[in-house]
């Protein structure tokens, strides 16, 4: 069960966004009528965009935690393009877009300026997609981590370059079809043995806080962001955000897909402090990876014309390994 809600309210469900039987301050930020909607209506994201959802979840939580004293720096990418096409912006917070590869560094600069101007109560978020984080922005990200700059970096991971038309990134999972890893040839889709695990690399920098989160688990996500934003030093939160366009999933299924990723073990939810895993969110109802993959056309070649047992076996093995490594099947409250 969700460790962060001691009382179980049944009809209202432990896992729903709201809960009329909880005290207001125990409810999720998204349930609040006064939530800031940091990313407001009118943005040009696709129907059912997981990134737009994840960004609002995260920033609203950060806004509440900081009493609206927040500045965000954004890398180039879908989030940036769909949110700020002249003459309109969907952001309700101070927001800066510089380049694709420098969000972390720009945020470091903002943090330095706020410090030197005695405004350290204003907290800084840098955010970008997986391309801007795990690939082109990686140098600046690592530098920011290494200097332990006072920045919370949030990566919205939709596992490919969606803004440019779904090309492979170092976050693209095994066998996934993208425009640059087409589903042709003897080994269709993304190659095996590739890709980068940035949360773990972040941990290797020994920074104060690293966490993974999913749009499928709002309360877990809000808790982590609210926690991260108030810590001093470099923090990293990696949020799994399905992309209906790039993944070939139904817009209505965005959360369902994200949930399957978590429940299958393919996307483990955990927290780490100073390089040590200190908490994980256990799986509630384990599902085979098929349940996740079948919802997405980018994996269709694994099931037709004939089932690719070898590849599916590899993917299931990844999930199984995660479940063991992170102890995801324990129902005990990992956070004690």
């Amino acid at each position, binding site marked *: 069960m969700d460790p962060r809600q001691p009382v179980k309210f049944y*009809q209202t469900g432990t*896992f729903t966004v709201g809960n009329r039987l909880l005290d207001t301050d125990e409810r999720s930020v998204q349930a609040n009528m006064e939530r800031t909607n940091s990313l407001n209506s009118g943005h040009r994201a696709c129907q*059912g965009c997981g990134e737009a959802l994840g960004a609002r979840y995260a920033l609203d939580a950060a806004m509440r935690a900081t009493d609206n004293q927040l500045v965000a720096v954004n890398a180039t990418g879908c989030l940036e393009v769909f949110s700020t096409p002249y003459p309109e912006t969907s952001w309700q917070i101070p927001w800066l877009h510089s380049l694709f590869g420098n969000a972390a560094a720009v945020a470091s600069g903002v943090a330095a300026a706020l410090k030197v101007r005695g405004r350290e109560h204003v907290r800084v978020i840098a955010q970008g997609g997986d391309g801007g984080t795990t690939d082109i922005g990686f140098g600046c990200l690592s530098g920011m981590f290494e200097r332990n700059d006072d920045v919370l970096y949030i990566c919205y991971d939709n596992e490919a370059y969606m803004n440019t038309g779904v090309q492979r990134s170092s976050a693209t999972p095994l066998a996934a079809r993208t425009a640059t890893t087409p589903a042709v040839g003897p080994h269709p889709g993304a190659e095996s043995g590739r890709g980068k695990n940035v949360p773990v690399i972040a941990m290797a920098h020994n920074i104060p806080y690293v966490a993974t989160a999913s749009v499928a688990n709002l309360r877990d996500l809000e808790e982590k962001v609210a926690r991260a934003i108030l810590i001093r030093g470099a923090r990293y939160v990696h949020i799994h955000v399905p992309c209906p366009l790039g993944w070939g999933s139904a817009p209505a299924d965005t959360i369902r897909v994200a949930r399957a990723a978590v429940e299958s073990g393919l996307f483990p939810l955990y927290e780490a402090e100073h390089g040590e895993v200190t908490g994980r969110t256990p799986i509630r109802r384990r599902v085979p990876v098929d349940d996740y993959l079948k919802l997405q056309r980018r994996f269709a070649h694994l099931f037709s014309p004939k089932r690719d047992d070898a590849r599916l076996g590899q993917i299931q093995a990844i999930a199984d390994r995660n479940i063991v490594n992170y102890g995801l099947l324990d129902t005990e409250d990992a956070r004690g």
Partner: protein
Amino acid sequence: MDKPFAITLDPGSSLANRTGSWRTMRPVYVDRLPPCNNACPAGENIQQWLYHAEGGDYQAAWRQLVQDNPLPAIMGRVCYHPCETACNRAQLDEAVGINSVERFLGDEALKRHWKFDSPKQESGKRVLVVGAGPSGLSAAYHLRRVGHAVAIYEAGPLAGGMMRFGIPTYRLPRDVLDAEVRRILDMGVELQLDRKVANVLDDMRAGGFDAAFLAVGAHIAKRAYIPAGEAARMLDAVSVLRSMEGEDKPMLGRRVVVYGGGNTALDVARTAKRMGAEPIIVYRRTREKMPAHDFEVEEALAEGVLIKWLSTIRNVEDGGTMTVEKMKLDEKGFPQPTGEVETLEADSLVLALGQDVDLSLLDGVPGLKIKDGTVQVAPNMMTGHAGIFAGGDMVPSERTVTVAVGHGKKAARNIDAWLRGREGAAPEKHAAATYERLNTWYYSDAPKTVRPLLDLARRTSTFEEVQKGLTEFNAQFEARRCLSCGNCFECDNCYGVCPDNAVIKLGPGLRFQFNYDYCKGCGMCAAECPCGAIDMVPETT
């Protein structure tokens, strides 16, 4: 701030961009009929009173409940709760313990002396209700609520009908029954006991009644011809149970054979057991075929009642020795004699072969149609004679307390309509809230809470109530297991999961509204609605 052109923009200005124009499917909020409500013979809005109960507002829950059923404490004990059989949660883990929560609310109401509201204004009409059984009381209550003057003529010495004379006290303590009857009478309902109606028309005329509701219970035991000597002690179930209410308890002896397989048969057997006898039930078919409810059979067996399946009684001799013939079911499932017999020693034989209603009060009433010992009624419960309605055991239908209460309510609505010269159409029913429409992920796992049972020793020796009530905690827990199938319970999911902030939260109790200016029609709200209260419908263009 002196903002540079185009590069720097004012916050939230994208509101000018109405993304609603992207939409091809539009989400709409719907309300659906939950299976519990649909299955309840009394038409209780169960989900609604559970909603109040889970919040801890028991009085609101109770008031909601008695909108449909004035006898919750009784229902919570004797109802065979078809609602739980229909409950969607049964497919997730176990059905919600609706009946136990209902009993908790009923008892809570008695404990706190909550009263029914008296009618706002009097209609000036008078209605005669014949029979103070569940359906009569229910009708009286509902008629009174809408302002009619109601008089109940009861042939028996006490109100309650079959609830009193058919149900043993270990299932329904009489103080509970009396209290709930009293509460109805307190509304200003007139009750005349030992007032048998010989001819309904005469009584209506005499009493100046504008309409009548006939709700006479089935008190006459069905007989079956069994050759027996004079000395053989043969009784019928109804009178045995009835006599339990009076001073002189029936003389049954030690070895009691009960003949029949209905709930009444079990009631008698278990009653006998409590009087120190050793009851044996003889039934001609198998346990599966037994009309009695399984949980009652279970309880009876647990209490030491013996049951002989596939057996018929051929004859009874003076000594009390009876010949029992083994039966077997033919392919059609009907029992056929095998010729194979055995004997059984018994001090008394109780026949529990069903009951009939005394319809003599209808003699000479024109327009009535009577078939198989029941009065035929129109869908609005009115008999062939204008102004005379009937329900409960008198009309063709299952004979349970809850059905009777339901009849009373339905009849009352129609009588009221008839008196006011309107059509008494029942409110339009919503489409069913099926299990497939639920997103059960959002309901955390919660096993049903079992009502504590009185331990066996005491059950078989006393008439103490077998089943105890829930503690408040358990009742609330149970209420919270409700999935709110088909109706928004303000979980905020749609409000939360919309990537376009296109759901407007209206505030506690006011639910939500879609903001079609920005809704792109992705359908995530519908997909993530736990209770299936959102439909996606094509945009009409």
